[in-house]
């Protein structure tokens, strides 16, 4: 789960990381009021969960209250990369002497958190990694011992931070680690961390991603989820504990297991088709779940064919078949269905579906070939 910049900054601030004065505004009038309160110039920042806001015109420096109102009206209600801009963060503008990248993420391979810093902040860390890999400092943190002061001092020295700023940098580093642990973050980054001409340090922009698996113990963070970044189908799928991701093709897929679901999508591509979605019904799915899944798939207007690929282990093919039948009772499916049932209770499942207008297949490859052909209107 990704947090907005303003949400990330609230968390930073709570953990002793200095942020610029600012407030959220959702109307141009409000933006003007906040600008007047804070004192100009201010920066207007679109709150959307995608990168590249600046380039897309989502960040503006304004010098007068009227300008704040005018620019806010241009940004609000617009979209960046398809996502609506509902809120602006209005912040007091800050002079910049140096920009630093400072973040913590998980090193999957090492199985440890890793603190990353660079004296060349302000641009994407991936960009720094590509162009100046030697400017990136990485320090692993032992999760049982936590971040130690000497590690942060070491980073400060490596990025050539002036000694007078070390104390503040240490406080920010420790605050970042504290936040990372407290909220079960997968990523907590400040980019840029700015040093002003007066020698103050501020987190000017930030990004936090929370581990979805930890939301059971992060109840107060669940309210921070912005559903506007997700399609209604994805939200509905989550209610049924299904993983669904809408794609741009025309072959709807229903598969049990994430790996097999990806492999099924890949097979479609190899056979010359395009998958309309990723959908994993998980292990041991009930007929209710299967029925909900099929309805979600069918809600996509681009669908030309539905491919159902079930390898029954804990999942019982007859249960899947019952779910398909329930969904078909409520909804007329006017596209062909290619069904492959293998494993636990496959025969029973096939029997249940024998009255339906469907195409059956034995192997995965055969099933995808048939699905691609039918989607193209070629009679199987």
């Amino acid at each position, binding site marked *: 789960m990704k947090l907005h910049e303003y949400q990330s900054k609230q968390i930073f601030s709570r953990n002793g990381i200095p942020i610029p004065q600012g407030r959220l505004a959702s109307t141009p009038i409000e933006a003007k009021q906040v600008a007047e309160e804070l004192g100009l110039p201010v920066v207007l920042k679109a709150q959307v969960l995608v990168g590249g806001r600046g380039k897309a015109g989502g960040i503006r420096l304004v010098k007068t209250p009227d300008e704040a109102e005018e620019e806010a009206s241009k940004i609000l209600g617009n979209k960046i990369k398809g996502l609506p801009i509902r809120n602006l963060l209005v912040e007091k503008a800050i002079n910049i002497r140096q920009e630093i990248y400072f973040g913590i993420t*998980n090193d*999957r*391979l090492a*199985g*440890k*958190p890793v603190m990353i810093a660079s004296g060349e902040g302000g641009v994407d*860390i*991936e960009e720094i*990694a590509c162009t100046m890999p030697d400017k990136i400092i990485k320090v692993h943190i*032992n*999760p*049982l011992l936590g971040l130690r002061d000497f590690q942060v001092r070491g980073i400060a020295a490596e990025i050539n931070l002036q000694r007078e700023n070390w104390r503040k940098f240490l406080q920010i580093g420790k605050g970042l680690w504290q936040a990372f*642990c407290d909220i*079960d973050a*997968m990523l907590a980054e400040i980019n840029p961390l700015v040093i002003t001409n007066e020698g103050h340090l501020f987190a000017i922009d930030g990004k936090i991603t929370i*581990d*979805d*698996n*930890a939301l*059971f*113990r992060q109840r107060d963070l669940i309210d921070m989820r912005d559903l506007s970044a997700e399609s209604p189908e994805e939200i509905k799928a989550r209610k049924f504990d299904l*993983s669904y*991701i809408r*794609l741009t093709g025309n072959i709807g897929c229903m*598969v*049990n*297991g*994430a*790996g*097999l*679901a*990806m*492999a099924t*999508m*890949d*097979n*479609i*591509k*190899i056979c010359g088709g395009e*998958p309309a979605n*990723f959908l*994993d019904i998980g*292990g041991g799915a009930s007929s209710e779940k299967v029925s909900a899944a099929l309805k979600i798939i069918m809600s996509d207007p681009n669908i030309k064919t539905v491919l159902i690929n079930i*390898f029954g*282990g*804990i*999942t019982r093919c007859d249960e899947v078949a019952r779910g398909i039948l329930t969904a078909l009772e409520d909804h007329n499916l006017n596209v062909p269905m290619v069904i492959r049932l*293998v*494993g*636990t209770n496959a025969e029973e499942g096939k029997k249940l579906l024998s009255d339906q207008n469907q195409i059956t297949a*034995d*192997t*995965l*490859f*055969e099933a995808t070939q048939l699905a691609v052909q039918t989607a193209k209107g070629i009679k199987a």
Partner: protein
Amino acid sequence: MSILVNQDSCILVQGITGKEGLFHAQQMLTFGTNVVAGVTPGKGGEWVLDGKVPVFDSVRMGVEVTGADTSVIFVPAKHALDAILEAEEAGISVIICITEGIPVQDMMRVRSYLDNSQTRLIGPNSPGILSPKQAKAGIIPGNIAIQGNIGVVSRSGTLTYEIVYALKHLGLGISTCVGIGGDPVIGTSFTTILEMFEADPFTEKVIMIGEIGGTEEEFAAEFIASQMTKPVYAYIAGETAPGDKRMGHAGAIIEYGIGSASTKTESLHDAGVIIAHHPEEIPQMIMKSLGLVNADIDR
């Protein structure tokens, strides 16, 4: 024969009185595996599965009474960290964690703790280990494979079953199939399992099934290039997966351009691994390498 488990393994099931734990403990028993004990705190003294398996309050008690050496964990995610540590503390040598949904920070703590332990953790979010005629420790259906000399290691469940089943269909058997788990931070890497297969005299070929996310496969490629003498076949799922979206498994996500299927396939290819473009191609490739022509090949 097999790696990690064998017919002498004594299995203890943590969370045995839960729906999943009980069902799969039964499946393991039916397969012929020695399920010697179950653990559910507060239910010590009970017997489950027609009185065949005693339930204990703690892993320690289960180990003391039955001599269990391998644990299969089915407890819910919020209790899984505790379950793993309890098994380690009780002296279990192989822990197989089936549980999905463990917070990654919990797993990082476990990993750091196990660095100084003799205990091996497989998973979490693993389907377990299956070795035909030897043992079934986990949820991999026992009837999808026959005994043979192919080692299988994978990050996913059903996709693996699919490939193992296709092997069986062509009369090809496996030595052991290990699911290392679909989470971002896991106890045992591809590389460690590859090392075990390389050392196992009963394994002649290895199939590796990877997926998008992380750099496990790239790391394994380095090991294969420098250390492995046995042929390795690989399939990487997720060529069509979009970036920045989690594809079901917590670990299956391309972030910052890292973890795409194509980079993994490339590194493995460069390491001399034979790459399959779709899952069912692997058994066909193996048949070809054996010089066996089979009518099913072109199906």
